C-alpha cells in the first residue's frame, strides 16, 4: 500500500466516526466495503486502531506542551489552552452526575463479585473492595476521578470576531480552520490560500488575503505577522489598531490596507479617512528605538522598513482586495457569471502592462463618458461618446453580455464613435496586445475600425495602429513612416488579415497580439489561438501630418471613416505580449455562461 492510497483519508475518518458511534449507515457500508475488498485497507484499518489504542493507554503521559513554549504559535495556543481547560472543567461538572452513576455501578458490580462464583467466598469484602474497584476501572477504561482534583479553570476567553464568509479558503492547519459563521477566538490564524472576510464588533470588516498569518487579539486589535489585509471601519468611536512586527497602525474610522512581508516590512495604504503609522520602538535594533509617526490620508501610502524608518509612497498599492472586490469575488464563487467577470477585471486592472481598460460599464452620472479603469492611467484616458456638436454621433448604451452589464451600440450610418484622448501612453510602437468583445452586425462596411491608437497630440502621426474587420476577416494594421497622402500613401502600411472569417451576430472575444521582436501578429478568437502572420516592418514614428486626429473606438479617429456597426464591449490595451493562457483566462472569465 502506498501512502498516497486515496481511501486513507476516508477510512481514517470512518474509524473515528465509528469509535464515537457517530457513523451513518452509508458510512458503515463504505467501511465494510473497504475492509472486505481491499486487503491494504484492512491493514490500514488495524493501523488506525492501534493508534487509537496507543492514545487511549499511555501516550497521554508523554505530552509536554511546555517544551515548545518559546515558539510563538504555541504561546498563542496556550491562550486557547485556557479555553480548553475551562471546557474540561465544564465537562467535569457535566459528568459529575455520570460519575455518581458510575460509583453506584461499581458498587453493584462489587456486590456481584462478592456473591457469585468467586474463587473463594469474599469475606470480609472490604479488604478487597479497593482492588476489585480498580480492576473494574481498568476494565472499563474509566479513570475519571482525577478530573475532580484539577484546579479550577481560568475564565473563558470570549470570541472576538466571526468568519462572515470565505472564498476558496485553505488553512495551514485544518485543525484550526474556520467555516462561515465560526466564532474566532484570540489565537493564531493561518490562511494558506483564498480569501476570508472577518467581522469584528462595531462594524469592522477585515478581508484577509492568503497567504497570511495573524491573530485577532481583541475586537479592536489585530496582530498581522505576515500577509495582507484590508480593513473597513464604520465606527470610529474607539481607535482600531493593527500591529505588525515593525509597525503600529492606528485607525480612526476609515478604509485602509496593511501588507507585511516575511521580514516584517510593513506597507500601509489609505483608501478613505486617515491613519497613524508608527514604527515599533520595542524592537532590539538601536535605530528602531526612536519612535517615528506619520499621518496618512486617503490616497497616501507609506512603508516601514527593516530599520524602522518610514517612507511615503507616491500612490497606494492597488493589490489589496477591499470589501467591494471581496463581495464580488464571493458572488462569483457562488456561481454568478457576471460577478465572475467583474472579479476578473480587478486582476486585469492591476496588470502593470495594461495601458487602457474600457469595461463598458455605464456611468449613470456621466453617461457620455466611457471610463478607463486602468489603475496606472486612471481617468486620463477616459473616452467621450461621439461629438458634442452632434448627438447622433453618440453610440447608445445597451445591455451587454449580462443584464447587469452595459455595452455600446454603434451605427455607421450615424457615424458613431468614442473619442479617446490623444495621449502619448496610447503610442505603443513595440509589443502590443488588444483584447475586446464584439457582436458585429453582418451589414457593416467592408472596412471598419474597432480600436485605433495614435501617439501624437492631435496630428496624424506617431505609432498609428488600427484593429478591426475588413472584408469579413479580422484585421490588424499599423504604419511605419507612412505619409499622410500623395502617391506614397500606404506604401508603409502593414496590414494583416486572418484567413478565418469573422463572426457576426454573436458575442466574440477577439485578441490580437503584436510581437515586435519576431514581427508577428497572433490572432485569438474566444480564447484560442487561430492564426499567426509575419510582417516586415515594425510600427514606427512617421512624419507628422496636418489633419487633426485622435485615437478612437468605432472609427478611424480623426479621419472620420471606417465606422463600425454592431455592439462593442470591454477593450483592454496592453503594451506587452499577453500570453495564450492569459487570453484564455480572460475569455473564460468573460464568456456569458
Amino acid at each position: 500500500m502506498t501512502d498516497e492510497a486515496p481511501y486513507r483519508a476516508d477510512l481514517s475518518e470512518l474509524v473515528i466516526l465509528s469509535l464515537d458511534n457517530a457513523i451513518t449507515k452509508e458510512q458503515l457500508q463504505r467501511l465494510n466495503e473497504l475492509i472486505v475488498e481491499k486487503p491494504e485497507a484492512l491493514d490500514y484499518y488495524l493501523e488506525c486502531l492501534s493508534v487509537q489504542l496507543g492514545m487511549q493507554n499511555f501516550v497521554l503521559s508523554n505530552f509536554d506542551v511546555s517544551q515548545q513554549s518559546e515558539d510563538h504559535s504555541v504561546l498563542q495556543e496556550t491562550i486557547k489552552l485556557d479555553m480548553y481547560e475551562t471546557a474540561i472543567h465544564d465537562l467535569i461538572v457535566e459528568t459529575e452526575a455520570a460519575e455518581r452513576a458510575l460509583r453506584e455501578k461499581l458498587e453493584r458490580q462489587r456486590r456481584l463479585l462478592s456473591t457469585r462464583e468467586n474463587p473463594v467466598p469474599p469475606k470480609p469484602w472490604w479488604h478487597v473492595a479497593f482492588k476489585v474497584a480498580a480492576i473494574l476501572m481498568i476494565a472499563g477504561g474509566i479513570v475519571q476521578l482525577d478530573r475532580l482534583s484539577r484546579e479550577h479553570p481560568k475564565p473563558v476567553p470570549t470570541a472576538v470576531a466571526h468568519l462572515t464568509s470565505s472564498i476558496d479558503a485553505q488553512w495551514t492547519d485544518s485543525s484550526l480552520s474556520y467555516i462561515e459563521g465560526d466564532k474566532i477566538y484570540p489565537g493564531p490564524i493561518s490562511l494558506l490560500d483564498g480569501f476570508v472576510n472577518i467581522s469584528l464588533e462595531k462594524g469592522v470588516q477585515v478581508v484577509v488575503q492568503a497567504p497570511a498569518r495573524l491573530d485577532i487579539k481583541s475586537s479592536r486589535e489585530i496582530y498581522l505577522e505576515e500577509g495582507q489585509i484590508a480593513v473597513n471601519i464604520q465606527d470610529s468611536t474607539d481607535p482600531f489598531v493593527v500591529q505588525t512586527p515593525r509597525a503600529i497602525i492606528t485607525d480612526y474610522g476609515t478604509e485602509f490596507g496593511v501588507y507585511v512581508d516575511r521580514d516584517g516590512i510593513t506597507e500601509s495604504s489609505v483608501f478613505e479617512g486617515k491613519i497613524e503609522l508608527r514604527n515599533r520602538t520595542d524592537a532590539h535594533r538601536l535605530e528602531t528605538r526612536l519612535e517615528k509617526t506619520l499621518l496618512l490620508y486617503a490616497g497616501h501610502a507609506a512603508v516601514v522598513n527593516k530599520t524602522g524608518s518610514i517612507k511615503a509612497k507616491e500612490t497606494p498599492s492597488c493589490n489589496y482586495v477591499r470589501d467591494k472586490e471581496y463581495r464580488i469575488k464571493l458572488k462569483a464563487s457562488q456561481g454568478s457569471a457576471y460577478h465572475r467577470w467583474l472579479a476578473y477585471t480587478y486582476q486585469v486592472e492591476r496588470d502593470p502592462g495594461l495601458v487602457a481598460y474600457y469595461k463598458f460599464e455605464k456611468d449613470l452620472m456621466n453617461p457620455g463618458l466611457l471610463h478607463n479603469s486602468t489603475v496606472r492611467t486612471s481617468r486620463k484616458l477616459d473616452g467621450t461618446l461621439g461629438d458634442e456638436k452632434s448627438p447622433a454621433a453618440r453610440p447608445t448604451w445597451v445591455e451587454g453580455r449580462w443584464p447587469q452589464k452595459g455595452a455600446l451600440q454603434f451605427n455607421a450610418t450615424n457615424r458613431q464613435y468614442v473619442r479617446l484622448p490623444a495621449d502619448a501612453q496610447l503610442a505603443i510602437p513595440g509589443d502590443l496586445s488588444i483584447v475586446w468583445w464584439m457582436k458585429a452586425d453582418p451589414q457593416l462596411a467592408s472596412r471598419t475600425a474597432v480600436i485605433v491608437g495614435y501617439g501624437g497630440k492631435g496630428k496624424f502621426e506617431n505609432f498609428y495602429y488600427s484593429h478591426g474587420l475588413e472584408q469579413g476577416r479580422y484585421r490588424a494594421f499599423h504604419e511605419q513612416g507612412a505619409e499622410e497622402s500623395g502617391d506614397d500613401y500606404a506604401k508603409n502600411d502593414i496590414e494583416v488579415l486572418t484567413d478565418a472569417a469573422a463572426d457576426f451576430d454573436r458575442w466574440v472575444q477577439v485578441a490580437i497580439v503584436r510581437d515586435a521582436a519576431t514581427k508577428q501578429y497572433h490572432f485569438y478568437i474566444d480564447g484560442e489561438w487561430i492564426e499567426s502572420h509575419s510582417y516586415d516592418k515594425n510600427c514606427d514614428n512617421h512624419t507628422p501630418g496636418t489633419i487633426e486626429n485622435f485615437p478612437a473606438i468605432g472609427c478611424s479617429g480623426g479621419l472620420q471613416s471606417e465606422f463600425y456597426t454592431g455592439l462593442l464591449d470591454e477593450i483592454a490595451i496592453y503594451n506587452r505580449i499577453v500570453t495564450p493562457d492569459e487570453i484564455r483566462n480572460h475569455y473564460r472569465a468573460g464568456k456569458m455562461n
Partner: protein
Amino acid sequence: MDSSNDNDISDHISSVINQFLPLLTMNHHRIYGYILSLLPVRADADDIMQEATLIMWKKFADFKPGTDFVSWGIAIARNLLLNYRKNKYYKVLHLNDEAVKMIEAKSESFIQEVDRRMDVLKQCVKKLPGRDRLLIRLRHEYEMPVKIIAERLGKNIKTIYKSLARIQDALARCIRRTLVAEEWR
C-alpha cells in the same frame, strides 16, 4: 464462621487478586485491542471488555499459570462478541459478518504487533505540531466529546472529525515508516 477463617479467606482473595491484577494490567490493551478491532464502537467495546474482565475474574481459578493469559482472555471476549452480534440491534450499525471474518483472520498478528506500535507511537506523537497534540490531548486525555471540542473551538463537528482523522493518518504513517526503518537497520 469465626474471625480466623475470615482472615484466611481474605488472604486468599488478596493472593488471587495479586496474581490477576498484574496479568490483566499487562495485557488489557491486547484483549481490548482485539475487541475494538471487531467492534469499533468505543462504548460497546468498553462494555464487552468490562464483561470479559468480570468473567475472567470469576473463572480465574480455571486459568493455568504459565499459559497465555491473552489467548484465554480473547477466547472469553470472542464468545461475548458472538453473543453480542446475535443481538437483533447489533446489525444496525456494526461491521458485517464478512468484514469481521477478515479482521479476525488478521487479529493474531495485530495483537502481536500492538506493543511495538504503541512504543513507536510515543515518538510519533512528539513529532506532531503543537496544535495537533493539543487536539488529541483534548480527545484522549480529557476524553472531551467531539461536540464539546467543536463548540469550544467555535468550529463545526465535521471539521474536528476531519482533523482527528488527519492526525490519526499522520500517526499511522509515522508508525509504519519507523517500523520499516527499524527492520532495515
